[in-house]
């Protein structure tokens, strides 16, 4: 019943202008929805009694069940007094050596410094036979902080929320009896993959550095590549159960304030238990949740992320994922490679045109093939037509069946090649494409021309750089194939028309998806084709940056100066 109700509702009501109407350039500054709603029940502070703390921690971290939550109880000897204490950390995320050597050792060993007199005399002055001693009152906190913890990053914290957040990120926390706060000691060290070459976005000339899983490493890589004090890296948390860190990076003096606020607002207002990767995060924060198109670029290249930052976009780093998200984007960003700006603009534009052609081919070629062979065979040059007819003469299937067989088996080969262990992948490819294809042609199950068509479609789909974008193309390709089989060019035209309308309606963080072509902006400085390196004077105007100009009118000053 409710399903029917929903259908009728969606038929007769407009949903466009209600939910999400964030439009980038036209909003004014001062978005107020920034605050994180906090769970007041959980907002507990450290108790003065160590036993209570221990109980609370045990309960909160489920340490009886959780095997990697470590609680080390021990005694501290200070000034010949003994204090009870315990250390809380997660095994595998903290550095055992530094905990042993530089936390437990100084605290537990009875050394000389520990057994000296009670009050330290700071200065002594005798005037009129009255000796005035300035005595520093013994303070256990200061003492431990100043003398007993030879660590670089130690904080006094009293909120259990902070403590738990820090513990799960690899810190260890020291609780001491009678103190109503704890020491948060940075001992993060965990096994990470070492920084490696980008596997999925290789380029020839340019940096060979890729992101890794660790958030801090990634942010440090960004910071290393972008030397500007205006780079802001804000930490946010995603997920209620799995509190994963995510960092929103932007250049404070370039990126649009509203954009940054909107990104943070969306990330902060994801009410989910967990979010396992950037891919999932992207689906949580995209504008049009029903579309199959990605609305953020995900990249593993540090230099690409940095150049997007410099344009004024926002980069979202997510802990545990070697990819970062870039928002906002247009559809043309999926056809960009970092290579483009490294080479001459003419060569880059050639590549870009080739990529655009391959997008069209991978999207439409099977559809056009079937439409032409089924309905519009007069469009084919006569010789080509006759060779197609000859090659099909002993194939038993209809063209649509043939094409679906080939397309589906191609997708299976691709999926299998991706999923099997990498050294088997090549074998799957060879067996699948070469041997199977050859055998299918020999056995007259498919025609050789169709194998060519499917192969071209497959190859062109690899020239689309973005993984999730090529998924959209693959889905749409099947739709176009079926439309072409149903009603030829009419079907394809209808498909393209609706597809275009959908593309036009999409937005990525308030930026229309087909900017600057729809809505058309003839004066736009950021057309699809690149200008020469010295003429890229403006940042993309649809980003509404605070610094629209990226270059001076005359960027190559040295040329001018010489002429004078």
């Amino acid at each position, binding site marked *: 019943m409710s399903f029917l109700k929903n259908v009728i509702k969606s*038929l*007769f*009501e*407009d949903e*466009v202008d209600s939910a999400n*109407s964030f*439009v980038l350039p*036209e909003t004014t500054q001062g978005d107020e929805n920034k605050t994180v709603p906090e769970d007041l029940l959980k907002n507990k502070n450290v108790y003065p009694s160590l036993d209570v703390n221990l109980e609370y921690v045990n309960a909160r971290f489920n340490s009886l069940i959780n095997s990697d939550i470590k609680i080390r109880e021990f005694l501290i000897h200070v000034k010949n007094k003994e204090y009870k204490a315990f250390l809380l950390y997660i095994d595998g995320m903290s550095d055992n050596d530094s905990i042993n050597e530089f936390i437990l050792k100084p605290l537990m060993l009875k050394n000389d410094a520990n057994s000296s007199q009670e009050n330290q005399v700071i200065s002594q002055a005798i005037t009129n036979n009255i000796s005035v001693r300035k005595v520093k009152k013994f303070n256990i906190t200061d003492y431990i902080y100043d003398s007993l913890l030879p660590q670089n990053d130690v904080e006094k914290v009293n909120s259990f929320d902070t403590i738990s957040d820090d513990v799960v990120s690899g810190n260890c926390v020291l609780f001491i009896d009678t103190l109503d706060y704890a020491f948060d000691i940075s001992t993060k060290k965990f096994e990470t993959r070492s920084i490696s070459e980008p596997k999925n976005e290789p380029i020839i000339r340019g940096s060979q550095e890729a992101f890794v899983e660790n958030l801090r490493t990634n942010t440090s890589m960004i910071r290393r590549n972008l030397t500007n004090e205006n780079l802001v890296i804000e930490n946010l948390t995603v997920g209620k159960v799995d509190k994963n860190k995510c960092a929103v990076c932007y250049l404070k003096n370039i990126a649009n304030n509203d954009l940054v606020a909107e990104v943070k607002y969306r990330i902060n207002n994801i009410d989910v238990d967990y979010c396992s990767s950037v891919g999932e995060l992207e689906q949580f924060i995209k504008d049009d949740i029903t579309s199959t198109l990605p609305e953020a670029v995900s990249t593993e290249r540090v230099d690409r992320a940095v150049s997007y930052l410099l344009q004024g976009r926002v980069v979202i780093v997510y802990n545990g994922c070697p990819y970062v998200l870039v928002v906002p984007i247009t559809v043309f960003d999926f056809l960009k490679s970092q290579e483009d700006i490294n080479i001459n603009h003419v060569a880059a534009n050639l590549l870009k045109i080739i990529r655009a052609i391959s997008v069209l081919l991978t999207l439409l070629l099977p559809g056009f093939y079937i439409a*032409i062979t089924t*309905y*519009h065979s*007069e*469009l084919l*040059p*006569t010789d080509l037509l006759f060779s197609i007819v000859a090659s099909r003469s002993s194939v038993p299937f209809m063209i649509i069946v043939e094409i679906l067989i080939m397309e589906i088996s191609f997708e299976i080969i691709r999926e299998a090649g991706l999923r099997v262990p990498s050294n088997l992948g090549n074998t799957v490819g060879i067996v699948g494409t070469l041997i199977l294809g050859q055998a299918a042609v020999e056995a007259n199950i498919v025609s050789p021309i169709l194998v060519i068509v499917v192969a071209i479609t497959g190859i062109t789909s690899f020239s689309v750089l973005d993984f999730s974008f090529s998924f959209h193309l693959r889905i749409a390709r099947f739709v176009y194939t079926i439309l072409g089989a149903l*009603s*030829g*060019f*009419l079907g*394809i*035209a*209808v498909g*393209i*028309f*609706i597809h*275009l*309308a*959908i593309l*036009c*309606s999409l937005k990525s963080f308030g930026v*229309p998806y*087909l900017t600057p*072509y*729809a*809505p*058309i*902006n*003839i004066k736009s400085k950021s057309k699809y084709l690149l200008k020469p390196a010295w003429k890229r004077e403006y940042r993309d105007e649809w980003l509404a940056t605070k610094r629209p100009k990226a270059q001076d009118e005359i960027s190559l000053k040295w040329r001018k100066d010489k002429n004078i």
Partner: protein
Amino acid sequence: MNSDKLNTIEATFLVIIVTLAHIILNLPNTILSSVGSSAIINVLYISFLTFMFFLIINKLFSPFPGKDILDISEYIGGKTLKIITNILYTLSLTFTCGILILDFSEMLKLIYFPDAVVPFMVGIFLLTAVIVNKIGFKNVVKVNTLIVFVVLITVVIIFIASFSNVDYQRIFPIMGKGVNETFISGILNIYAFSGLIYLYLIKPNLKNEKDYKKVGIASITLSSLYLLLSVASLLLLFPFLTTGTETLSIYMSTRAIKLGKFFERSDALFILVWIFAFLAYLSVIISYLTKINKKVWNVKHSSPIIYIIALMTLIASLIPTSSEQIRFIEDYIYKYLSLFVVFVYSFIILLIGYLKKTNYMAKRRNSRKSIINIKH
């Protein structure tokens, strides 16, 4: 949020798509058969007249910033006149639109889908337009802008490709069927610019009010240019005596185009472009009718109106029973209907509105003057 506002190019292309859709079907042919070999002169002549006409409209619209023809008819005759204007617009547009789509579907059936059922094809067109309209008004405009670009380029390609076969002597005899036919009764060919109907409606949707004049001039110039190109490529290519009786004239001219040895029969590609043009045309008409009806009837959601208008178009497309009737409707009923709506009715409303407004303002000025005089 002014996301529904149009920039100059989008608005211009909205007007042009109507002319383009007619050009693709039979507009150049109708002009040719009515004036003969003086068609080029006639097109230049009516373009000039339309241009003048627009300047007058622009002047008449000047006291009504941000108003369209509906607001003005409300200003003159209250709600009743507003509803009458709305109904007139809706009926005439759905009617012509339905007939045009029917004609186009018949043509597609003839060429490619001999087994297809025509109302079913019209249904497919309408369904597409409805889906696109449901995605949103602004998206219709955006898609239309992209598609008009493609269609404009295609028309130029057709002209260039058929240029090698052109006999420029075919513009003779220079006066065609006669001076009278060219300049007096030929005035009626001004209905070719019935896309001007948008210029009565578009004003409140413009991003910048001052662009109105620009939009009008650009759209009339482009429309007339393309009308000229298509009329010229037909006139100079074929003996006009035959084109006058030929259906699908532009299609016929694309059939003769040879793009090298490899693409000898490229007309299917042009058909593809024209399907785009018609889908865009249909979506634009439905979206605009939805917009004005939503305004007049004060409806919250536009979807029901979209359905009703699509249904009305479908019904209109079921009226004719033979291609002879379609031809008659296109050549006569459509001609006089659009002449009446665009060039007579709307103009009169605008004129009355203008006179009332200026009179009112003059009176106010006078009364103010007299008050001042009394004070003195």
